[in-house]
């Protein structure tokens, strides 16, 4: 007998952030059909719509957190936390875009429609409670981002970047799906809870086919979070994509993929066998070491940030490797790290997009930052804080993020991993500080024109503030470190209890 899923106002309420995003995407598609330019009205509307999503997230913050729509999605603290993170990242990308799109002649409604669709894909991805919705979210996000990467149609770099990202992405998704089909064959279900129950009760977790399936799924995720050995595309794609989209890929796409990865592995695969933590630990070491070493020799700042984002994926993988059922510490440190990392990366890319230009070396060479620090004191200060935070120097958010992850690793008995992580951070100091040295110590040859309009300035100011606040902000007006860590603990504990 077919029983349609109960759709009532309560469920529509829970889906409000998602519905707003999808509706906004369709609305901007229609704007694109009937008039092409994006005016002030549309720009304001975009910001309002994203703010509405954040508002609904706040309203739902204490939601029950049970699976809805026949167990397709779950709106709990964890998914709401990541919905907020990806919305903030998308908003940062939008604010950075305004001036950038004008200068590069890309000012179209479709751009924002795709951005909304990508964000709704991410929301589905972080709330997925079934492999079907996980797959749909992943694809909705990826397909939109493939197009956005190639958005500068006449640009050779963008063409190449889009094609590389598309082909490798589709290839990785095929492996992921093959793994999913095996999981389905073994357990007879695609529901997370169902998989967990079947895997532990019938001893499927030790079946070699099950291990192969999990390895294939791991490969699919490793591609999305840009972990070694699936990282080759990252520098090329980051370089060729429009800078606001690079920012989105380095933050929102990565955060959403990590969220789905964390939920799926924590609930379904970690329980049965501890082999995974060894494999993920090896990936973590390779990823951060390769990222940091290759970043040392980069001259193009976007490529340098690409390798830096690979290295940061490695640090987060340390957290994944030290996940355990008894303690939620490792998982909550990942959430905190992703939030902190998103802010510093959004800020850094907002600045890069302001310096970028159309001709010559395109303003992407690190050497072209010479003299920026003295000519534009605010920009110089902001960049200094972002770089310090990325390198993990106290008292910034980057330092605390690393501290929580490494201490979780030590607690989980992975002392070696923590030591390699610390050594890597020391190595990364060299290339982050080099940017500052060029900015402050060297004289610029040609006059710099920096396009720091209101949007870019707002992004810089907000991320600057957030990084410092997440570092040592007191607990009064805004939630500080303590409450954010508490939220992350609660949301992770919820997943663990559902998995039990």
């Amino acid at each position, binding site marked *: 007998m077919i029983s349609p899923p109960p759709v009532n106002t309560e469920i529509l309420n829970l889906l409000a952030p998602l519905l707003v995003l999808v509706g906004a995407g369709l609305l901007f598609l229609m704007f694109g059909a009937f008039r092409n330019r994006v005016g002030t009205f549309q720009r304001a509307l975009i910001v309002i719509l994203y703010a509405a999503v954040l508002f609904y997230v706040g309203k739902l913050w204490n939601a029950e957190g049970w699976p809805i729509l026949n167990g397709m999605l779950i709106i709990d603290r964890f998914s709401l936390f990541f919905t907020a993170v990806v919305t903030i990242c998308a908003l940062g990308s939008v604010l950075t875009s305004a001036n950038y799109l004008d200068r590069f002649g890309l000012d179209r409604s479709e751009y924002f429609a795709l951005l909304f669709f990508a964000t709704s894909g991410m929301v589905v991805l972080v709330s997925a409670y079934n492999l079907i919705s996980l797959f749909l979210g992943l694809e909705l996000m990826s397909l939109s981002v493939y*197009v956005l990467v190639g958005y500068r*149609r*006449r640009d050779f770099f963008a063409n190449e970047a889009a094609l*590389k990202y*598309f082909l490798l992405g589709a290839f990785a998704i095929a492996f992921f*799906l093959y793994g999913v*089909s095996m999981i*389905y064959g073994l357990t007879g279900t695609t529901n997370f809870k169902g998989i967990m129950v079947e895997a532990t009760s019938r001893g499927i977790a030790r079946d070699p086919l099950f291990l192969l399936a999990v390895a294939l799924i791991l490969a699919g995720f490793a591609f999305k979070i840009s972990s070694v050995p699936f990282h080759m595309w990252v*520098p090329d794609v980051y370089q*060729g994509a429009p800078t606001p989209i690079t920012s989105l890929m380095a933050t929102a796409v990565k955060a959403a993929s990590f969220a789905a990865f964390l939920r799926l592995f924590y609930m379904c695969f970690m329980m049965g066998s501890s082999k995974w933590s060894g494999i993920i630990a090896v990936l973590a070491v390779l990823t951060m070491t390769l990222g940091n070493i290759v970043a040392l020799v980069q001259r193009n700042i976007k490529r340098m940030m690409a390798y830096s984002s690979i290295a940061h994926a490695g640090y987060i993988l340390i957290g994944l490797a030290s996940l355990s059922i008894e303690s939620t510490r490792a998982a909550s440190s990942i959430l905190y790290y992703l939030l902190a990392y998103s802010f510093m990366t959004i800020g850094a890319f907002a600045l890069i997009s302001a310096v970028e230009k159309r001709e010559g070396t395109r303003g992407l060479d690190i050497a072209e930052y010479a003299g920026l620090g003295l000519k534009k004191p605010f920009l110089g200060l902001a960049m200094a804080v972002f770089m310090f935070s990325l390198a993990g120097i106290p008292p910034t958010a980057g330092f605390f993020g690393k501290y929580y992850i490494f201490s979780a690793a030590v607690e989980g008995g992975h002392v070696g991993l923590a030591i390699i992580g610390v050594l890597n951070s020391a190595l990364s100091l060299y290339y982050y500080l080099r940017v500052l040295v060029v900015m402050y110590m060297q004289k610029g040859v040609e006059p710099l024109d920096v396009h720091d309009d209101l949007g870019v300035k707002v992004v810089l100011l907000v991320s600057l503030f957030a990084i410092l606040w997440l570092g040592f902000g007191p607990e009064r007006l805004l939630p500080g470190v303590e409450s954010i860590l508490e939220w992350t603990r609660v949301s992770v504990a919820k997943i663990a209890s559902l998995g039990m």
Partner: protein
Amino acid sequence: MITLDHYLYLSAILFFIGVFGVLFRRNLIVILMSIELMLNAVNLSFIAFSRYTASMDGHVFAFFVMAVAAAEAGIGLAILVMLFRNRRTVQADDLTLMRD
């Protein structure tokens, strides 16, 4: 008698024909077709599992894979056409603009 194993072998063979196509062919359109072949191999295994475990989830999954594969093919072709208009090539070896 055709059993589940036969379908799974066929699915695995198709999948790896696709993998080798992606790895060893240089024409981008052929690579795109190979990826589609991989997705169809996955579909076959979903349907076979669904038939033999008597649950409908596999059918539903296959539907979604088909729809998404169509969208993916559409976007892939669009990107390819864009590249061809600018560069007049559809060979993977010509994509060497960005290097370290």
